[in-house]
């Protein structure tokens, strides 16, 4: 139900409101409606069944005014009740307009409040002042400037809007709220609110805006007389805040920082090239020489182009002749080897420097204090690595080169004859004690070696398996030049000694070998082959007990141990056997002996002819004896007992009366018959007894040194002290006068004198011829 009057462009609202005034208090209806007397006013429809008559009239009024409003005709009962009753008739009041008003009075407020007043002693009606209801409440943020709060705010420095600013506002749209609030502060009732509003509205509608504004402004002016002074001013003006020098206003702003972004770039480096070199004067010189050479070549080529045709034939011939190009490496190798050899010699000399000096210059000064005795100075020691386990089986000096000697390696151990699978003949030089100059390989132990007196590169060796080998040192090969085979007359037993003979009639080289199978064989080297001829076979000499047959005895042979040719007589030679018997034989007769000498009881180790007096020879055997013989006599001239097993014996080349012997206990005995017939002039141990046995000895033909071979494969070189080399005054003078023949004669004479003393008278000669 609309409580407010309907807004219509007509005049009805005005009329209605007047009506409301007129009959305000008369009817106290809960609703408070407005009743319009004349049908023309916008009368509100009455509510409630009590006001039937009025309602009908209202309804009609409305429907007549607003044709679009469809109303329901209410059918009211027509009761015939008096006006005093509630349910009575309403006929009387049918035309009476019911006025509905909106008041602020609280209808439920008690109207008849009484209070007992003690003074008068009666109940008095009290009129409550607060019987109002708030119909409308609008909160506002404005309050009057004269109010307490406003004053407080102004003092605090808020500043109020003065008239000028208000005017500014008023020029624009005037807002209803502001006006309302302004008016509100004057203490108007709210029920008059609407009236005022209407007035304003109508005023506004009727009058110009400015008037209204002016009136408002005046109202404002009236309220605030204080403000007149500052009304004319523009701008803020008004109440300024009091400030001193300490008060400041701080303002700060921050600009916007842009986002950061990094970007990088690297350029490509330019291409670079490195170059390094060095330059010297010699480099420049070499470059120039090469350049000049090239230039010459070019020039030659140009020349040759012109003369090409002429020289073709000659050039081609030259080429053919010199077709064989020597291997450039060969020269190089040879030079290299030569240089290496020299270097080796140098190193050896440096290493064994003192020994070399001793060899050359040292003379035992103590010999002056000794009458006859001499000493042996040990010099070098020669050994060969690969033949370390083997014994020295033979020593032989090279007749042409005085510093070369040959040593053969083998073993005397009967059970180990097949052990050494490879054996050597080493040719050592005194200049190089550490390694042999030449090496000759053999397939088994070598038992003897000999160097040809006139061809110092030919080396003959007898092997333990009975074969004979000839080595040629000129050929750079370790294998034998010739080797005897089983078909070719190889011995059946160890070849004990081998000796070169003079070239035979046809000019071929030949040599003799004697072996344990009892044959003395002559071998001839015919171009590429080795021929043999049995010179003789040693017949068995002993008496066999149970064998009486001659046949068997004839076929048996004795083993030969050594052979030696007479230096003057080529045909005569001596053979020593295992039985200890020496036979003098000749090459012309193979079966017959010229002489037999019952020399020793054990096998003969060596026979040596005296170089000065060729009728004298010396023998040694494993029994402790050395015997000197004259080949005409069957009895020895001298006998020496050395108290130890004798290994070898040799005559000295510089004296007819000096010889040396080696024994198993490591001693070397040197005898000089001229000085002492019975005792050795020197008896010196070379190596300790237990270490090795001395096997062989040999004098050097030019130097006063001895080489001694032992059972450990080492060759010891020993220098003879002056006493051992003593020569008679006459010999010395003869040599000083450069008369070698005379010296020789003197030597011979010396020995002859000696022998004359020893020799038996002539009657011994007869006895010799009897025995076979």
């Amino acid at each position: 139900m609309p409580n407010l009057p309907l807004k219509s462009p007509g005049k009805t609202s005005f009329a209605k409101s007047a009506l409301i005034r007129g009959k305000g208090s008369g009817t106290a209806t809960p609703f408070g409606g407005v009743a319009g007397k004349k049908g023309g006013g916008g009368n509100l429809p009455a509510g409630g069944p009590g006001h039937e008559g009025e309602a009908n009239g209202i309804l009609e009024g409305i429907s007549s005014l607003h044709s679009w409003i469809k109303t329901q005709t209410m059918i009211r009962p027509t009761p015939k009740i008096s006006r005093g009753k509630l349910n009575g008739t309403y006929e009387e009041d049918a035309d009476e307009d019911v006025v509905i008003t909106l008041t602020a009075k609280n209808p439920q407020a008690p109207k008849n409040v009484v209070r007992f007043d003690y003074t008068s002693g009666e109940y008095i009606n009290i009129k409550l002042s607060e019987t109002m209801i708030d119909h409308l409440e609008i909160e506002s943020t404005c309050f009057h400037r004269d109010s307490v709060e406003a004053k407080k705010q102004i003092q605090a420095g808020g500043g109020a809007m003065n008239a000028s600013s208000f005017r500014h506002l008023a020029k624009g749209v005037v807002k209803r709220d502001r006006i309302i609030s302004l008016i509100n502060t004057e203490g108007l009732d709210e029920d008059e609110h609407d009236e005022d509003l209407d007035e304003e509205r109508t005023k506004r509608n009727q009058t110009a805006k400015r008037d209204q504004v002016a009136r408002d402004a005046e109202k404002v002016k009236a309220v605030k007389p204080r403000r007149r002074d500052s009304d004319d001013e523009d701008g803020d003006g008004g109440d300024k805040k009091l400030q001193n020098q300490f008060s400041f206003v701080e303002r700060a702003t921050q600009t916007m920082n842009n986002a950061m972004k990094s970007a990088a770039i690297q350029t490509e480096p330019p291409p670079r090239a490195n170059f390094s070199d060095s330059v010297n004067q010699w480099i420049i010189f070499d470059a120039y020489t090469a350049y000049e050479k090239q230039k010459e070549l070019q020039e030659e080529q140009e020349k040759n182009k012109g003369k090409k045709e002429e020289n073709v034939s000659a050039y081609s011939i030259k080429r053919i002749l010199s077709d064989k190009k020597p291997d450039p490496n060969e020269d190089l190798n040879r030079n290299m080897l030569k240089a290496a050899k020299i270097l080796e010699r140098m190193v050896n000399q440096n290493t064994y420097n003192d020994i070399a000096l001793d060899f050359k210059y040292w003379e035992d000064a103590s010999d002056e204090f000794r009458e006859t005795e001499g000493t042996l100075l040990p010099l070098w020691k020669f050994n060969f690595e690969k033949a370390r386990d083997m014994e020295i089986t033979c020593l032989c000096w090279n007749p042409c080169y005085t510093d070369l000697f040959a040593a053969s390696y083998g073993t005397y151990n009967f059970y180990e004859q097949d052990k050494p699978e490879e054996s050597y003949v080493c040719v050592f030089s005194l200049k190089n004690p550490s390694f042999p100059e030449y090496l000759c390989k053999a397939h088994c132990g070598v038992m003897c070696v000999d160097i040809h007196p006139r061809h110092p590169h030919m080396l003959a060796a007898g092997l333990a398996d009975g074969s004979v080998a000839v080595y040629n040192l000129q050929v750079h090969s370790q294998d034998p030049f010739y080797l005897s085979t089983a078909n070719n007359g190889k011995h059946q037993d160890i070849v004990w000694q081998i000796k070169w003979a003079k070239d035979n009639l046809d000019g071929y080289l030949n040599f003799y070998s004697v072996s344990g199978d009892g044959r003395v064989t002559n071998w001839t080297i015919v171009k590429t082959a080795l021929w043999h001829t049995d010179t003789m076979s040693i017949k068995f000499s002993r008496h066999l007990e149970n064998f009486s047959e001659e046949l068997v005895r004839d076929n048996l042979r004795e083993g030969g141990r050594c052979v030696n040719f007479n230096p003057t007589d080529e045909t005569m030679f001596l053979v020593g056997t295992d039985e200890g018997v020496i036979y003098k034989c000749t090459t012309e007769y193979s079966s017959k002996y010229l002489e037999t000498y019952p020399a020793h009881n054990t096998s003969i180790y060596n026979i040596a002819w005296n170089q000065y007096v060729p009728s004298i020879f010396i023998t040694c055997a494993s029994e402790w004896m050395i015997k000197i013989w004259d080949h005409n006599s069957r009895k020895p001239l001298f006998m020496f007992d050395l108290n130890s097993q004798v290994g070898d014996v040799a005559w000295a080349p510089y004296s007819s009366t000096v010889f040396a012997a080696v024994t198993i206990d490591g001693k070397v005995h040197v005898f000089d018959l001229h000085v002492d017939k019975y005792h050795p002039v020197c008896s010196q141990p070379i190596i300790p007894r237990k270490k090795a046995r001395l096997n062989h000895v040999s004098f050097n033909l030019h130097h006063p040194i001895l080489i001694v071979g032992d059972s450990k494969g080492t060759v010891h070189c020993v220098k003879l002290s002056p006493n051992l080399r003593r020569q008679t005054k006459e010999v010395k003078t003869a040599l000083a006068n450069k008369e070698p023949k005379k010296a020789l004669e003197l030597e011979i004479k010396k020995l002859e004198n000696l022998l004359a003393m020893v020799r038996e008278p002539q009657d011994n000669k007869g006895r010799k011829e009897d025995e076979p």
Partner: protein
Amino acid sequence: MASVPKVNGEPLMIPPNTCYAQFLNRTRVAPIVKYCTLGTDASDEALDIILAACELLPWDNLGISNHIKNHLDDRLGTPWHVVVGESFAFEITSEGGDLMFVYYGSLAIMAWKCGHVLTREIKTKLQVS
């Protein structure tokens, strides 16, 4: 090294302390180009410059190198580095690999180009900014 000493107005001919120097310088053989990575035209030019310098200033290695360097800069672009001597060793880095190594008499002349890329960059930057 000071400037060439003069005796009566003419430069003093002091031969350097080397064995073959005198021999070689007297004979004045042609230059031997040991190593060259320039093109034929450029190398011919360079060789001419080198010969001219050596003929002009004998025994004055500093002067020779100075002369060669300036002329090479003029003709073949900056910057060139020149080493002149009788006995030296070197290890250089050359941009673009422009090298020239020449024997002349007893002298050895080594010239190479390095640093022209950087200078080019500097030039362009200056132009831009």
